[in-house]
């Protein structure tokens, strides 16, 4: 799996000179020394960006645009709530750990500073963002030692996270988001307001999206231990409708808030999913 992710590194280096450059868009667009494109001048544009050499040759004003190449901070938020333990043969938590490892590895390759927060209803582990020597090992160790906890509570870890994120960067939140989409977005949106870019990786097991029950079953919530008896018909029809509505709401709410949202099913190869996300992101830039 990691071998597949290393392929992404090659793509990032080839296309945007570094994976993380393809992963984020510099807010200081134009300060980079790498030329991006010309654009016709329109009234109101900053005259400092006009390429006067071109104006001298063509008597037309064009703005010269660049892509930034600044290193940025990446913070991975890994949901370790009990519900992440669901799924077979690969649980959502394992899948999320692979994903977090891949991301921090790529950040390391790009010499970006990377940090990690493992949380459930509280922050269980925090690795301060850094690009120093040994940071990768600390991050991977943090990922590896992460244990499933109790219930998910976005509010508390995000409050603490805001204390640590002094500079702008990219925050990647990996969770199953069994919460009201509006509440999730409301919780994470402050990070967006502070100039951070926020990416939501929604990890779900196929059995959560399309459950199939052979007969009436007594289901026990992995976080609350609540039990509900349900029927196969309900799981086949109403549940799926609700789940699809939830996914749609998550996507819509995230888009409305300017947050990237990407659904990852655990039955899908991680590298394939990640590559697709990067391809979509690259196309958007």
């Amino acid at each position, binding site marked *: 799996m990691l071998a597949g992710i290393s392929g992404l590194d090659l793509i990032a280096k080839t296309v945007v000179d570094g994976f993380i450059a393809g992963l984020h868009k510099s807010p200081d667009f134009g300060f980079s020394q790498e030329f991006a494109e010309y654009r016709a001048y329109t009234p109101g544009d900053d005259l400092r960006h006009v390429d006067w050499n071109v104006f001298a040759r063509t008597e037309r004003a064009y703005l010269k645009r660049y892509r930034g190449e600044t290193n940025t901070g990446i913070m991975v938020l890994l949901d370790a709530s009990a519900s*992440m333990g*669901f799924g077979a043969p690969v649980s959502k938590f394992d899948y999320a750990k692979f994903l977090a490892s891949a991301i921090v590895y790529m950040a390391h390759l790009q010499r970006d500073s990377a940090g990690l927060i493992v949380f459930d209803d509280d922050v269980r582990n925090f690795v301060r963002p850094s690009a120093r020597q040994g940071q990768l090992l600390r991050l991977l160790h943090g990922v590896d030692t992460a244990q499933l906890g109790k219930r998910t509570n976005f509010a508390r870890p995000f409050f603490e996270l805001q204390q640590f994120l002094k500079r702008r960067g990219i925050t990647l939140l990996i969770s199953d988001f069994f919460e009201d989409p509006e509440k999730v977005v409301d919780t994470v949106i402050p990070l967006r307001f502070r100039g951070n870019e926020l990416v939501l990786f929604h990890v779900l097991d196929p059995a959560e999206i399309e459950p199939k029950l*052979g007969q009436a079953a007594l289901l026990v919530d992995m976080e609350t231990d609540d039990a509900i008896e349900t029927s196969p018909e309900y799981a086949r029809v109403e549940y799926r409708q609700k789940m699809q509505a939830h996914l749609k709401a998550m996507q819509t709410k995230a888009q409305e808030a300017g947050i990237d949202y990407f659904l990852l099913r655990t039955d899908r190869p991680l590298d394939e999913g990640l590559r697709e996300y990067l391809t979509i992101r690259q196309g958007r830039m």
Partner: protein
Amino acid sequence: MGFLSPWFLAGLAAVTLPLWLHLLRQYKRTPQAFSSLMFFERRVQSSVRHRRLRYLTLLALRLALLILLAVAFANPFINRTTGTTGRRKLTVIVLDRSFSMRAADRMQQAKAEAGRIADGLRGQDLAQVMALDSHLEALTQYERNRGVLRAAIASLGPGDLTSSYGEFARALRAMEQTSGMQLEVHLISDMQRTSLPNFRDLRLGPHTTLALHPVGKSNTANWAVENVVTAPQVYDPKQTRLTATLSGWHAEAASKKVSLVINKHVIGTKEISVPRDGRAQVEFLAFDVPYGAGRGEVTIEPKDNLPEDDVFRFAVRREDPRRVLFLYTAGRTNEPYYYKAAMESSPSTGLTVEAAPLERAAHQDFSKYAFVVLNNPGEMDKDVAQALCAYVQKGGAALIALGGTSTRTGKIPLAGERFTSEHVTQGAGYVDEQTPALAGVGRFQNVQFLESVQFQPKAGARIVAKLADGSPLLVEERMGEGRMLIFTSTLDNTTNDFPLHASFLPFVVQSGHYLAGGDETQSSVVAGTAVALRRTREQSASADVVGPDGKHALGIGEAAKALSFGLLKEGFYEVQRASGHRSLEAVHADRRESDLRQIPAETLDLWRNTGSSQTAATGGIEQQTVPWSLWRYVLAVALAAAIVESIFATRYLKERQTV
């Protein structure tokens, strides 16, 4: 609606099984961990209700299937009303011609009544005249011609057989089915009580109406010679004995003069009083019988309304005792001792034993003997064996007793089967006392046989006695027209102690009587009895029967091929069988016909109602109620329920198995 086999409804108890499975059995659920119940609603009750609803559909189908199966096996029916106007009508005029119709002028009354019925038919009505005795005989085809019907009625005369209303009803049921017509049957009979079978056998078909026309007085007094018992053969006139039984039915006490007549000569006459509705017996002893076949009669006087049963005919034959040839191995003169002593101690058998060594048998004319006994024969002269075979095949008989000398040849003389023997001391295990050769001989108690013989009897042979180990002791075989008994031990006391036991004497007498053909001779038989003319169709010699009227009863073809002949009329028949054996057969009518009492009127009414007289006339159209069985339809519905149930069950199981 009803059920033809209601006991099968007990199968409805099986519905408790699906009820238990669906409603009473606890459904155990194993809790399953799930990441979040955020999208599940607490619908425990609705889920269970939904499930139960699903189960209830399946349950209903299963209950319906079981109920339908039980109902189908119970054979439900409904009564349907059907019209009978579609069938053509056939008027059947049946005249009773049994022996009892000879009484007074019953036959004339019956013919007059039949004539009136025939005259009353409409122009296009189809009719048929039939005669009834022990069976129903058509005298005409389906006729519209009144002349043909009247001629058939006029030609009819009383017979000597018994009437059978059971056979009459059975024939009508068959006739209704085969003709497909509506039968209007007129039975003209004296309605004898003795002709009435089990009432169930009187049932008529749904398209048959029965009109009964009784003739004669309901209770006519009658006396008859009911039975005569005497030996068919007379060897010694001093020992002749005849017992006649006189009976009166619905008759007052009366004095009757009883005469014994042989060959039209009155041998003796006696006066006897017959009690009211009772019986009396008269005996004639030591009367002389002339040599040859004698035609005997016992008559009573004065005559009554049915004079034909005042005479009882019997056949008696005066002859000298017949000889039995006992062949033994030369030098063993003691061998015939026991057999001869036993046979001659019973002079009523009419058999005397003549012993001769087997070596001198070539000079014998076997046809002079009633049968031949071969005791412990060894290797036989070829000519003697051929002569004996020819003798048996032509109707003779042989008793072959196997012993040590026979064992050396390993082959049964005449019969030809190979056999082996071993020394085993044992008693008899099985004796068929129903066979004529062993009737009344007992079970050979305490007799010890020292040898056991094993052989495979021919096809058609019968083992009529066995030893304790199951090996044959006495085997009956046929050879052509003749008969053989193979006794697997000797008739002296060399390989058994049989002659020293009481059962030896009846064995010798009864087997001798059988081999001499005594079982085929009776002093008198009931009209309708068949007499055997030959044993196989291959027998080319012709048979002959001269009837009571003195005419030959067989045509040329029948004489050459007929196996038997029915003695249908009272009187004497001279019968010559294919084997050449001649006999005189006396025939008398069944004395049940002498009881002239009639069936009660209420019984006759019940009989009438078993046919389509149940039908009710509705608007000029005859309607008939018939049961209509529904089991096929119920079974079809059950099949449909089974198919739907299997579809539901398959879907249900599929849901259970998918994850």
